[in-house]
């Protein structure tokens, strides 16, 4: 499958001031990632691992410090003029975590969905709005167009956010924890919607989440991030059923699982390393039960069983 988005050596550093001292926080420390056509890739990890920064750099909300971003095989320049920027935004849309905060409370759904059409001069036909509402399973669409966001439930609001994202017919949607604020009974409805949009509209998703079970359900591939680096990447089902990297194992153990027979005890008490002064070698080394002296040296990605793992054990 052809790739729609390819990232090589992506780095992002933030300057942080504390008193008179200035620190450099290395949020992304060289990320290589590929997103193929009609593919859902989930990025999982703890907060502070850089997953949201990655999404924001790809959405051009942050400028990368170093690295290359290719969209449909063409390198994306650092600066875009207004026309190029519009074209980019038309192809790459975003969906945020909180459906209560990402819709303007003073505007009707019809206005919210019309905005992208006006900005991208697609021509404003009511039929387009009705079609996208039907695509996100808000039926009958007429009844939703005249409503305000507060009249909808959380799940319905998140569907409106998806409708707004697909109205420009994008090829890529960057989704930042789209289900974490939703109740259990409707969460899977939104996950199913993502699967449907992928199948019927040929949309690729880069999905950031901390919910390993949701990631396993919808994704083709899972990328595990830790301290600004990708530590494991591969087939979603395989990663969850047989994690290779010790950090992925830890995540797998920590995830709630009603099917577990007895609560296996988690021995971990550590924390992710500081990103101001990250360790030279494997970032997980201080917390890892399998740590060896050679983990202090930088560890390269290696390929094991068709998966990429950044660990000296393999």
């Amino acid at each position, binding site marked *: 499958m052809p790739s729609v988005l390819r990232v090589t050596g992506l780095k992002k550093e933030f300057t942080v001031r504390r008193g008179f001292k200035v620190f450099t926080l290395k949020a992304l420390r060289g990320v290589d990632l590929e997103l193929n056509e009609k593919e859902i890739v989930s990025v999982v990890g703890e907060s502070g691992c850089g997953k949201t920064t990655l999404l924001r750099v790809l959405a051009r909300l942050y400028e990368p410090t170093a690295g290359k971003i290719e969209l449909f095989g063409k390198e994306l320049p650092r600066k875009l003029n207004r026309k190029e920027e519009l074209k980019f935004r038309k192809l790459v849309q975003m969906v945020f975590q909180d459906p209560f905060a990402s819709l303007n409370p003073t505007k009707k759904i019809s206005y919210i969905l019309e905005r992208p059409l006006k900005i991208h001069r697609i021509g404003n036909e009511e039929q387009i709005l009705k079609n996208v509402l039907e695509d996100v399973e808000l039926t009958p669409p007429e009844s939703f167009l005249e409503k305000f966001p507060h009249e909808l439930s959380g799940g319905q609001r998140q569907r409106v956010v998806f409708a707004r994202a697909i109205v420009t017919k994008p090829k890529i949607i960057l989704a930042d924890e789209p289900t974490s604020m939703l109740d259990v009974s409707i969460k899977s409805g939104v996950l199913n919607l993502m699967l449907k949009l992928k199948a019927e509209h040929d949309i690729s998703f880069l999905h950031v989440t901390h919910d*390993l079970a949701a990631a396993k*359900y919808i994704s083709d591939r899972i990328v595990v991030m830790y301290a600004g680096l990708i530590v494991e990447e591969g087939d979603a089902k395989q990663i969850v059923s047989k994690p290779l990297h010790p950090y992925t194992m830890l*995540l797998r153990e*920590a995830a*709630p*699982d009603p099917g577990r027979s007895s609560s296996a005890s*988690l021995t971990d008490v550590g924390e992710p390393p500081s990103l101001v002064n990250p360790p030279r070698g494997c970032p997980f080394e201080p917390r890892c039960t399998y740590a060896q002296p050679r983990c202090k040296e930088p560890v390269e990605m290696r390929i094991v069983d068709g998966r990429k793992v950044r660990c000296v054990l393999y």
Partner: protein
Amino acid sequence: MFEVVGLNAGYEFRHKFVHAVRNVSFKVEEQDFFGIAGESGCGKTTLMFASLALLKKPGKVISGRVLLDGTDLLSLRASELKQVRWKKISLVTQSSMNSLNPVMKIKDQMADVLIRNHGFSKKDAYELVKEKLKLVGIAPERMENYPHQLSGGMRQRVVIAMALLLSPRVVFMDEPATALDVVVQRSILQQIEDLREREHFSIVFITHDISLLFELATKIAIMYAGEFVEVGKAKTVYSEPMHPYTKGLIEALPSISRDLDRYKSIPGRPIDLALKIEGCPFRERCSFAFERCRVEKPELRFINGRWVACHLY
């Protein structure tokens, strides 16, 4: 030991009454881990506040009793409640790690209740604080710190230590770990579980994360529209759910160990608790609903070793 009998509570406004807890009864035995699960707005937090006699206006308890070792908490006067709270029953609230006072040292906010309500001297109070902090795995030096100097997980541990100060018999926990990262969350929950066994107290655990509850709780109650619809042993409720709502929740829940091709969400949305509900509150979202569900409200009945409120059985 701890028992809630026929509790009805809600919020009173000028034109309407939101009946958030509808005739709920349950019993917590010695060293139980009793889980209450439900979606947002199902009344679980109201139930907790009402059971602790903490419900403030416009909240109101209409009827029911909350018995702790035979005394009804709801009939106690404020001064008597002060004696019971912390000592016999305590509470860890939602994102309580943010409820620590930022300008007070950890030791002072922990010792506050001991000195103020339970007649401790300052020295004894600090001694006890030190001991309880050790219990949750925080170095005693940390008691000199201010909350901002601790990580989120440590602050949550401080709040748990605070709830355990006077070795209560029952600890209510309302989503004690949801604001934390998965790994930290897991280690805190594990610690809670260890402490429960070591210190012999019971937990009433309230959350919307049912996969977590099924794994941890010994008994579980599924709450919908202010009522308990199914109550039983957590493992059996998970393996053989009876109420259609419980079934729906389990089918809606992506799990890391199961391999379903498709998870289905439950259609519709929860019913408005300000309305008078006729028949079964779940019937509009239920695929098994029939005529009787519309006219007659199903009562909780004891079937196959558990309590279910459904006309199917």
